[in-house]
């Protein structure tokens, strides 16, 4: 056998590439051309300009890339730019909501605003604050969490670790159905059942019950997903040590899934903290500080915001923005606190 050396066809492994400065140059040129277009034609408007400029930049870069670098790289650039643009579009509402609330709410947000209620504040007075609403929100969301988090965890553990067959299937089905309950319906149910039929009247506790109905399915579904992510090998390792199943769940499965479970619970808390509709029918609002959640009308931050926006006066509108900002800050603070707590816990303790 002789080895024949046949000259391979000259396939070049090199190819021309656009340097990033050239790409930036073309992008800048596309923006300039768009600007010129807006200057001489009847086109106008900042939003329109941004949209046309973005499309012009993408089109220019892709066409130039195709000519110089070939089809594959041009496709890559098109998809990369498309993904980046989609990201910016998706971030836009979030940044806009946060930024606008911040700019409108900051001027009324003060220590005084956070420590005073609306007691004795007339329709044209600029004073008053959200203390009574923060108190109500904390109590209502706290009670709702106390009800729905343990229940939700146990349901999730049942359907992932124990449940087989029809019962687990139907529980999962009804949890899915519960996820779709509109919040006003949860409020109406508690209003009809608790407030009217049982004659318990409006209270923070009634509000907490309606919020718990909304939290439960979110807690169950997110916990279920997180528990399913725990590798089976860990359970088997634990069983093989002669550790009983309940102990395996408590000491191995749940700690492993803890970070994800906490995130899920925090998302559920964040969701119900901003609920307004069920509170209208259950807590019903109050201008005064009302500590006892078990009887009597109570305020809450979303209710406060809603009620202030019903006023025609600027002082009330400003209070509404400041209240909305307070609400956002509380949710962010809770989320950050929960993440910090679980991060410390998943790192090892001895």
């Amino acid at each position, binding site marked *: 056998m002789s080895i024949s050396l046949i000259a391979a066809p000259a396939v070049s492994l090199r190819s021309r590439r656009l340097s990033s400065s050239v790409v930036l140059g073309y992008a800048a040129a596309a923006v300039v051309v768009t600007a010129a277009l807006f200057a001489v034609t009847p086109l106008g408007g900042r939003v329109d300009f941004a949209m046309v400029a973005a499309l012009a930049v993408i089109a220019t870069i892709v066409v130039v890339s195709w000519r110089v670098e070939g089809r594959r790289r041009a496709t890559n650039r098109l998809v990369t730019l498309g993904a980046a643009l989609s990201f910016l579009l998706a971030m836009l509402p979030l940044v806009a909501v946060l930024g606008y609330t911040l700019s409108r709410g900051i001027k009324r947000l003060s220590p005084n605003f956070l420590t005073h209620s609306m007691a004795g504040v007339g329709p044209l007075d600029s004073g008053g604050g959200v203390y009574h609403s923060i108190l109500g929100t904390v109590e209502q969301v706290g009670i709702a969490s106390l009800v729905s988090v343990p229940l939700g965890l146990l349901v999730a553990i049942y359907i992932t670790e124990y449940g*087989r067959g029809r019962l687990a299937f139907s529980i999962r089905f009804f949890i899915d159905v519960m996820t779709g309950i509109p919040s006003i319906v949860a409020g109406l149910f508690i209003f009809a059942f608790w407030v009217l039929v049982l004659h318990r009247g409006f209270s923070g506790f009634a509000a907490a019950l309606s919020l718990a109905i909304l939290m439960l399915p979110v807690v169950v579904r997110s916990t279920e997903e997180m528990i399913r992510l725990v*590798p089976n*090998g*860990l*359970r*088997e*390792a*634990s*069983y*093989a*040590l*002669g*550790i*009983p199943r309940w*102990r*395996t769940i408590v*000491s*191995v499965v749940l*700690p*492993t899934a*803890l970070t994800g479970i906490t995130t899920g619970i925090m998302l559920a808390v964040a969701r119900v903290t901003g609920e307004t509709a069920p509170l209208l029918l259950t807590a019903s609002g109050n201008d005064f500080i009302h500590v006892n959640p078990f009887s009597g009308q109570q305020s809450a931050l979303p209710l406060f915001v809603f009620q202030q926006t019903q006023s025609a006066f600027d002082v009330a509108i400003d209070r509404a923005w400041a209240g909305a900002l307070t609400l956002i800050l509380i949710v962010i603070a809770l989320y950050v606190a929960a993440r910090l707590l679980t991060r410390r816990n*998943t*790192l*090892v*303790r*001895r």
Partner: protein
Amino acid sequence: MAKRIETIGLSCFYGSTRAVDDVSLVIEPKTVTALIGPSGCGKSTVLRTLNRLHEVVPGARIEGRVLLDDLDIYAETVDPVAVRRTIGMVFQRPNPFPTMSIYDNVAAGLKLNGMRRKGELDAAVERSLRAANLWTEVKDRLSKPGAGLSGGQQQRLCIARAIAVEPEVLLMDEPCSALDPISTLAIEDLMAEIKDSYTIVIVTHNMQQAARVSDTTAFFTLRGPGEPGHLVEVDTTTKIFTNPTQKRTEDYITGRFG
């Protein structure tokens, strides 16, 4: 310490699928027994029936009997959790508990079964880590996460975790298949050291390993895809690797798989 295991007419099922058919096998105490055979022949399944881990899979069940000394571990009155406390297991992929420190991993079997006295736990952890040849490498970082160790160290940590509860039998399911040759050697040395105190059963795809570490070798195979696996031959390792009785064993160990 160290008990004898005997399976009598053991068949394993996953749902209605028969995975292993009619295995009768004696495993002597204080020896290393290797289970070898092609993929899918049921050696891991047989291993998992020995500590009743097979039945953890939904729909899995067995027929036949498994004796630990004279006790049928599948008898009605036997608690599977107690069986697993007596028979430790090391898995193919190192699986230390990710939320626990090195110390807690080793102590897990004792702690989670209710042992609280710190002095005894400390002693058990040190003894197990020394037995697993890991003590000198980790003694200064016992409170660091077990998942931060290298693959070979993690596997030795899992061995330490398994022997910390002082089992009578140690089952090893391809313990070295995810490890490099140096870590493999460390674990093989370890097996040679501890076999005086335990009955060791190891599943391996590596025939050199079976020849190196085991006293007895059992060869499993299957007739074809979808057929149940069965035991072909069991004998001393020397006999199996030099002069097997069955043609199929010889074909397999010489690489002419048939």
